[in-house]
């Protein structure tokens, strides 16, 4: 938890690794994931680095693995999940992996080749069989003597009819891809000028396409033609269209014979089954070892890529690596090196550096969500005050101010609680939906947001826009009625009545907790709440900003810039407190000083505040306390006087330090640059104080919008369900409640929740963090074999 306040101390270190044990050392460090390696040869292109051969070997192996994986996938198998993280293989083991994997791949290749050749042969035979069978329909003689010889019944081409004309009819038969049929037919017709008869028919069963592996219904064609020249042309064309052409005997008898022969050959192809079985065995073996190998080789490749970033010392016996290392982990690193090295001569040494080290803030599952909110704005500069621990409380609180409703808060809290309780269930963890994962990552944030919303809901006294009366109201209507002697007739004619707090007994002091429920019946409910919420926003905003300015102190002290305490922090604080702090004081003073009795003469704070800047006083607006005008004048003068201090203080201080002879600095500071920077900062701060205070009014606006929206939902939807205390009313209530529930979740919880979240985010990033946070750092990315990078 200590490192959450500011990032951990990180140092630059050199690792001296003996060539012999460098590999095992890096492997050990990768398992622990402690260090970020720096590239010492940025100018050397990847193929000129030292361990390029090893990297290439890993790539070769990966290529083999990809082949194996593809074969597995083609066979419809999934490799077994990797049991636990295997360590990077030692050189000899890597060699073994390589040998075995290549052997397996070779075996697999041979088996699948013989299988596919067998399959091809089988397909070929079956296609031939189909061609012959389908061809029969066109070329066979009519069966049976009883069939009359009519043109329609006669086969299209009867070779026997033409024998006596002494013209030889030849056939080209084969199969063609269905997509190519039309083009093929057209081209045949054009090229051969119609001296042929082509018939096409679909094959009765689909077969595999050898090119794509898809199963398609091929088309069988049978072309009859006269003359040898045309025959050649047809063969050429069918060749061009990648048709499979089969021999088609001319006589009926030899065709039947061919069919029986083909049947016989298909029967003979029983070796296919054995081959399939053997293939399955090989695949089993692959599925078992592949995942482990993959992880091992990935680790090995990563190690060599890191080694490629190291440089050699002069004796060439030792590799030098430069790393960013958290100071806390130095002993662990030493430990890892001792374990990894054979002879124990690998060691780590800190080196001084002027470079700014990377930022390392260790988080746990609770703080990670808050830290990521801060990191999304900018990673903290090295050792800067980290706003995340304060955001743990302020963020949900500011959210809740805008989202205050007991019912909605409770729903949100329960949703988050469910996620928190079942956070270890793999079903929640391994969702692939990005939006869901975002919610899941922020479950603790949502939990707190829900809890705080319940609290502010009680303060606002709103539960699904309805007030709850936990305590009896402090206002007594009976007393008022007795005092004014309201008759029934009077009550019937007057829809709205006034309760006067000045009448004794009507107002018995403040409600114990939150807003009195009687206000929800009042017509001036909104006026009352607006005044309350507006003042609350300003007060909270100024407290929040003041806290931000205070946090700057820790930065100034930590970075040994004590002059900034006086020259920056002090004027900033005076400026903020003298103007806006005074406003907060006025608000509280008026709340305490004026009661219902003298509320008619209570002065307006707004006019007083404007008069304060104009150095005037208004006769109609009574002073709040004696001596108000001189106090205000002093405060304004103080605030104005702090501006030049803020503007000129730091630049002049730097300038004086430069001029002082005893501190001659080699690097000349550019005075103009410092001055410009400070001027921008001053303008930003002074204008920011005004605009940021106004910006906090969004708390008021958003909470008002939320309350109004939920009230609208209640009165326009839910109230329609209350048609009467009958069975009909009960039935009507069901769909009305369904609509109410859906709208509540969709609009009030999700949409309003997101909007309040965004505004809370803005208030933190802009209004709070710009008071002290630079956020110009970069994260420490340790070299680690993270489990999520496998596969």
């Amino acid at each position, binding site marked *: 938890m200590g490192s959450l306040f500011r990032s951990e101390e990180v140092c630059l270190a050199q690792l001296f690794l003996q060539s012999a044990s460098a590999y095992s050392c890096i492997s050990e460090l990768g398992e622990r994931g402690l260090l970020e390696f720096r590239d010492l040869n940025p100018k050397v292109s990847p193929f000129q680095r030292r361990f390029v051969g090893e990297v290439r070997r890993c790539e070769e192996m990966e290529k083999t693995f990809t082949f194996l994986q593809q074969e597995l996938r083609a066979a419809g198998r999934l490799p077994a999940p990797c049991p636990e993280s295997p360590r990077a293989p030692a050189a000899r083991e890597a060699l073994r992996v390589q040998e075995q994997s290549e052997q397996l791949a070779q075996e697999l290749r041979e088996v699948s080749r013989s299988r596919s050749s067998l399959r091809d042969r089988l397909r070929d035979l079956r296609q031939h069989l189909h061609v012959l069978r389908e061809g029969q329909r066109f070329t066979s003689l009519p069966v049976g003597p009883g069939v009359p010889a009519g043109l329609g019944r006669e086969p299209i081409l009867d070779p026997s009819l033409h024998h006596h004309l002494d013209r030889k009819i030849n056939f080209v038969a084969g199969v063609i891809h269905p997509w190519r049929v039309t*083009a093929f037919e057209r*081209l045949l017709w054009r*090229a051969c000028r119609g001296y042929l008869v082509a018939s096409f028919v679909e094959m009765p069963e689909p077969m595999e396409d050898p090119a794509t592996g898809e199963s398609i219904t091929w088309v069988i064609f049978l072309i009859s033609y006269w003359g040898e020249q045309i025959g050649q042309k047809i063969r050429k*064309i069918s060749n061009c269209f990648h048709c499979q052409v089969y021999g088609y005997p001319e006589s009926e008898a030899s065709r039947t014979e061919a069919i029986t022969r083909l049947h016989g050959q298909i029967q003979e192809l029983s070796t296919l089954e054995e081959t399939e079985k053997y293939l399955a065995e090989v695949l089993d073996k692959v599925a078992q070892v592949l995942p482990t190998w993959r992880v091992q080789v990935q680790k090995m490749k990563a190690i060599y890529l890191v080694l490629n970033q190291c440089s050699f010392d002069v004796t060439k016996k030792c590799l030098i690596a430069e790393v960013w290392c958290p100071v806390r982990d130095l002993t662990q690193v030493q430990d890892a090196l001792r374990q990894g090295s054979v002879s124990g001569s690998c060691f780590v040494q800190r080196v001084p550096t002027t470079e700014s080290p990377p930022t390392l803030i260790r988080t746990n599952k609770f703080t990670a969500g808050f830290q990521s909110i801060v990191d999304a704005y900018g990673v903290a500069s090295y050792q800067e005050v980290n706003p995340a621990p304060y955001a743990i409380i302020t963020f949900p609180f500011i959210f809740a101010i805008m989202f205050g409703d007991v019912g909605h808060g409770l729903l949100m809290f329960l949703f988050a609680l469910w996620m928190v309780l079942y956070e270890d269930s793999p079903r929640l963890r391994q969702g692939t939906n990005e939006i869901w994962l975002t919610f899941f990552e922020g479950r603790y944030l949502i939990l707190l947001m829900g809890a705080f919303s319940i609290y502010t809901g009680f303060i606002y006294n709103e539960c699904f826009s309805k007030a709850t009366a936990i305590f009896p109201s402090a206002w007594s209507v009976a007393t008022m009625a007795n005092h004014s002697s309201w008759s029934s007739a009077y009550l019937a004619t007057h829809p709205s009545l006034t309760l006067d707090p000045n009448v004794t007994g009507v107002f018995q002091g403040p409600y114990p907790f939150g807003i009195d429920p009687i206000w929800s019946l009042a017509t001036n409910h909104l006026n009352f709440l607006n005044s309350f919420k507006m003042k609350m926003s300003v007060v909270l905003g100024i407290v929040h900003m003041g806290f931000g300015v205070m946090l700057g102190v820790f930065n100034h002290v930590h970075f040994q810039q004590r002059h900034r305490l006086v020259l920056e922090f002090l004027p900033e604080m005076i400026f903020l407190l003298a103007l806006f702090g005074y406003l907060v004081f006025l608000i509280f003073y008026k709340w305490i000083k004026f009661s219902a009795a003298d509320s008619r003469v209570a002065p307006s704070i707004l006019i007083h505040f404007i008069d304060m800047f104009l150095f005037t006083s208004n006769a109609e607006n009574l002073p709040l306390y004696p001596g108000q005008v001189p106090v205000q004048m002093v405060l304004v003068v103080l605030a104005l006087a702090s501006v030049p201090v803020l503007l000129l203080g730091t630049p002049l201080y730097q300038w004086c330090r430069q001029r002082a002879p005893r501190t001659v600095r080699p690097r000349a500071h550019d005075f103009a640059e410092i001055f410009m920077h400070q001027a921008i900062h001053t303008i930003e701060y002074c204008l920011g104080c005004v605009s940021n205070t106004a910006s906090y009014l969004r708390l008021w606006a958003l909470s008002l919008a939320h309350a109004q929206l939920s009230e609208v939902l209640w009165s326009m939807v839910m109230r329609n369900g209350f048609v009467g205390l009958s069975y009909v009313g009960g039935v009507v209530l069901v769909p009305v409640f369904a609509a109410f529930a859906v709208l509540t979740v969709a609009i009030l919880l999700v949409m309003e929740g997101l909007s309040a979240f965004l505004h809370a985010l803005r208030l933190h990033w802009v209004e709070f963090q710009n008071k002290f946070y630079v956020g110009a750092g970069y994260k420490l990315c340790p070299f680690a074999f993270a489990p999520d990078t496998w596969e």
Partner: protein
Amino acid sequence: MPGYSEFYFNVDHGYLEGLVRGFKAGILTSADYVNLAQCETLEDLKLHLQTTDYGNFLANETGPLTVSTIDEKLKTKLLTEFHYFRNHAFEPLATFLNFVTYSYMIDNVILLITGTLHQRPIAELAPKCHPLGSFEQMEAVSIASNPTELFNAILVDTPLAAFFQDCLSENDLDEMNIEIMRNKLYKSYLEAFYKFCEKQGGTTAEIMRPILEFEADRRAFIITINSFGTELSKDDREKLYPTCGKLYPEGLHLLANADDYEQVKRVAEYYADYKAVFEGVGSGTGEKTLEDAFFEHEVKLNVLAFNNQFHFGVFYAYVKLKEQECRNIVWIAECISQRHRTKINNYIPIF
């Protein structure tokens, strides 16, 4: 509505234009070429290409790496990208992209006819065709014995039919006629493409005009230079010149009457662009050939296409630049594999 294309261009073509600009960022830079030229073996070349946008395009090659595998894979990658464009394109971009493929189709048809003439089997020729220009009936080209048959039987269905009207003759297909046919096809193709771009108007026409004009003029120059010492008469030669270039009409007349290289060069001197191109050419060993000089000028024109938005020229330019890149990589790979390093720097850098 030419002239207002900016307003509605993105509705139909915005996605693809964004995509092509993204792809353009992956074109190798001169720094990449310097690194590639330092490679010792093809494996080095592969390793370096892995660090660029080509990524793992050679990762699954088993067996030793050869220049032809590299070439094939480069072309496959371009083809994949182009098909993606084509499949997602609306009219008129779809037609525009079709036009881009026609030039490759012409080359393929001619290649197949020439190959058949030399008695090469079609199976050997087919892989040599550019994949961008392959079409269904392509391989059947070999059965034709004369241009009429070629047209009536095969090409009549293809988009090339429109360009074929000029080439119909009863002549046999010999080498000379094939060459003439190629140039006539190209001439009609370029003129049709030019007309199509003019019809699109707006920035598309503005960008494509110089590119196609240059293409036409380049062909005119090359036809002239190649026809020296052949039987081609000057009249016939003039008929082959595409008429959509800057040389039309006076320059083409002059070219038609040229008798040797010097006269061609003199014609080029009337035109500032071509003067510069011809001046860059030398006959020495370290100097550029005319072909390279033309390629260089083409690259320059194509790169300019990316300076404007809302037009189709980027697609044409991207394909052409990528093709040049393929040529460059293959050239470097050839030099590496043949250990002929002196000319390795004769590639044409793009960016």
